[in-house]
């Protein structure tokens, strides 16, 4: 410190110790966070450029556009502010908000904050409302792919038939089939909650999950996004439920993702409101007696961790593969990375060659990546996972992360091969935009 810095305004020892703690513990951006932020920023800036370009074109020939153009305002804070600017590509918005697509075109709503809601061909959709914080889109029949740019105070809502999907920054698709009464939500990134008939209250979903609700059969199925095990058949009219006493998906709790054991449950025919607290407590107790996968599905991570820590060495050596996976998930969700790593290591050591051991490789890669200096290790784990589970649940994610890691470690040219593979295999995946940009950049 220089003499000029002397301010005679030192903190007392206890306050100084707290300040030092804040300096040590807060504000450290990990390389993974930095990479993710860069990708988000790049996407936002690219969209802004496109919007500016569109507005210029619109200014020159506004009459030629059926799309609605409003004053662009990206930095919106409240719904009382100007509504988000948007335009509809591939169609027009009717006076009542109906989205009328041109023939053989998949229309896409592009908002000024970078959010995109694309409708599959033939989808019946309506733009119900737009305000300064987001928009409300309804799907009467068909599929919407949604990519919401996360922002503070944003409020996005997608209704799919009678179901309400409340959205935060996220990438997901929602399909509603009016004829069969079937909802299918695939969540790639972020979080949403889904509420409607037979859900028994809001169902919180997390990244990598897929939710299917067969309304007519009062069935709810929540599992990994690529997990087809236990799929509900479109024509399924049976009422049998193998896990009879399991309640509907947890109320406002993050349920198990990527679980090999799908959560298949009958739902109460008129259950809309969440069950009262005593029932939730009973559910948690029931989960506890049935095992950690059920507790995980109920979002009861603390119970799993507390039980495991009573005798961790024995747990790691003697627990089932399911329990180890549940423990690893619970620990990851609670950011207890060391515990998660130990559970994942045990999974790989004891259940070598199993799908769960392969999944553990992917999660170990994520942990290494998160810890900063572990990109090289993370890359090795992703390669192991891709070798061990070439059609596993996390292949798209692993390939995307691999691309990001290769780019950071070895540069654009090296990452190009991975990007090309990603675009070829997952043209609509969550890393597709980044992969295309990288591929173009390398040319």
């Amino acid at each position: 410190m220089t003499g000029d810095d002397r301010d005679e305004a030192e903190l007392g020892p206890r306050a100084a110790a707290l300040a030092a703690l804040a300096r040590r513990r807060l504000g450290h951006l990990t390389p993974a966070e930095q990479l993710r932020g860069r990708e988000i920023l790049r996407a936002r800036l690219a969209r802004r450029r496109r919007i500016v370009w569109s507005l210029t074109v619109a200014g020159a020939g506004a009459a030629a556009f059926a799309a609605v153009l409003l004053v662009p305002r990206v930095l919106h804070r409240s719904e009382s502010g100007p509504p988000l600017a948007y335009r509809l590509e591939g169609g027009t918005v009717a006076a009542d908000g109906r989205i009328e697509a041109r023939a053989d075109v998949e229309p896409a709503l592009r908002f000024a904050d970078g959010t995109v809601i694309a409708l599959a061909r033939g989808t019946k959709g309506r733009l119900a409302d737009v305000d300064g914080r987001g928009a409300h889109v309804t799907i009467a029949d068909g599929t919407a792919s949604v990519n919401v740019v996360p922002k503070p105070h944003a409020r996005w809502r997608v209704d799919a038939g009678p179901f309400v999907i409340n959205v935060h920054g996220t990438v997901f698709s929602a399909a509603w089939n009016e004829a069969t009464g079937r909802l299918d939500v695939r969540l790639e990134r972020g979080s949403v909650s889904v509420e409607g008939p037979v859900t028994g209250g809001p169902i919180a979903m997390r990244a990598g999950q897929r939710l299917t609700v067969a309304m007519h059969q009062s069935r709810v199925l929540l599992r990994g996004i690529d997990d087809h095990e236990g799929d509900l058949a479109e024509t399924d009219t049976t009422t049998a439920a193998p896990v009879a006493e399991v309640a509907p998906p947890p109320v406002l709790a993050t349920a198990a993702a990527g679980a090999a054991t799908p959560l298949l449950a009958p739902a109460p025919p008129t259950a809309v409101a969440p069950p009262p607290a005593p029932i939730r407590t009973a559910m948690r107790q029931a989960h506890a007696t049935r095992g950690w996968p059920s507790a995980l599905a109920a979002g009861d991570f603390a119970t799993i961790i507390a039980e495991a820590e009573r005798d961790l060495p024995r747990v790691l050596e003697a627990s089932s593969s399911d329990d180890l996976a549940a423990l690893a998930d619970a620990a990851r969700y609670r950011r207890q990375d060391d515990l998660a790593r130990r559970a994942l290591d045990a999974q790989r050591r004891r259940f070598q060659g199993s799908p769960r051991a392969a999944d553990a490789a992917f999660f170990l890669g994520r942990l290494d990546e998160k810890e900063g200096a572990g990109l090289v290790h993370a890359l090795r784990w992703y390669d192991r996972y891709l070798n061990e589970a070439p059609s596993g649940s996390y292949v798209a994610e692993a390939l995307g992360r691999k691309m990001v890691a290769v780019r950071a470690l070895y540069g654009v040219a090296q990452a190009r091969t991975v990007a090309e593979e990603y675009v070829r295999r997952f043209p609509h995946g969550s890393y597709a935009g980044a992969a295309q940009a990288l591929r173009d950049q390398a040319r």
Partner: protein
Amino acid sequence: MMHSSGLGRLRLVTPPSGESQEAEDAKLARALIDGEARAAELAWDRYAPLVHGIVSRALGPDAEVEDVTQEIFYRLFSRIRSLRKPEALRSFVVSFAVRIVKWELRRRRARRWLTLSETGEVPDDQLLFMNVDNRYALRRLYSLLNLLTTRERLVLVLRHVEGMTLEEIAEAMEISLATVKRTLRHASTRLSELVDADVQLRPAGGKRRPSK
């Protein structure tokens, strides 16, 4: 025990490598002004850790740190043409970040959200990986910082947590050096008194009191 006088000060205005750093900054600033394709990403790579640190330490453990950091860069690129001296890009970025953080703090204060988050709940996003004592201590620290004015809080955090010099703070906050000194003296005294008087913090600072 640790006094702030023992902290290593970060050099935010004058980079450690002197002229070459300034020359690089000037080059980057001109590329940003010209709208060159990769300039924004380079700026992010160079300054995101710095901005993220300022935001995180000023706001406290907050789920919105990432959003606010993004917002700062997004808005910064819109205003880059107002940068008069390209070689002072670093100072420009810091001033811009501090200004946005100040608005954010004032917005929260105006809405009477005096706790650590806008919902009134203490967000655990950045705290989950800490042990319970540190987590609790940080919550208390930022609860007490909420009792200071926005200016006092920012000056104190930039000095004692972020480690900026008084001159850097004056430049970043666009106030005089004398004002910085006066504000810092008052804020430091006040926070020290608040911490010492806080019965929920053990004398060692950072030790959690048994929950009630």
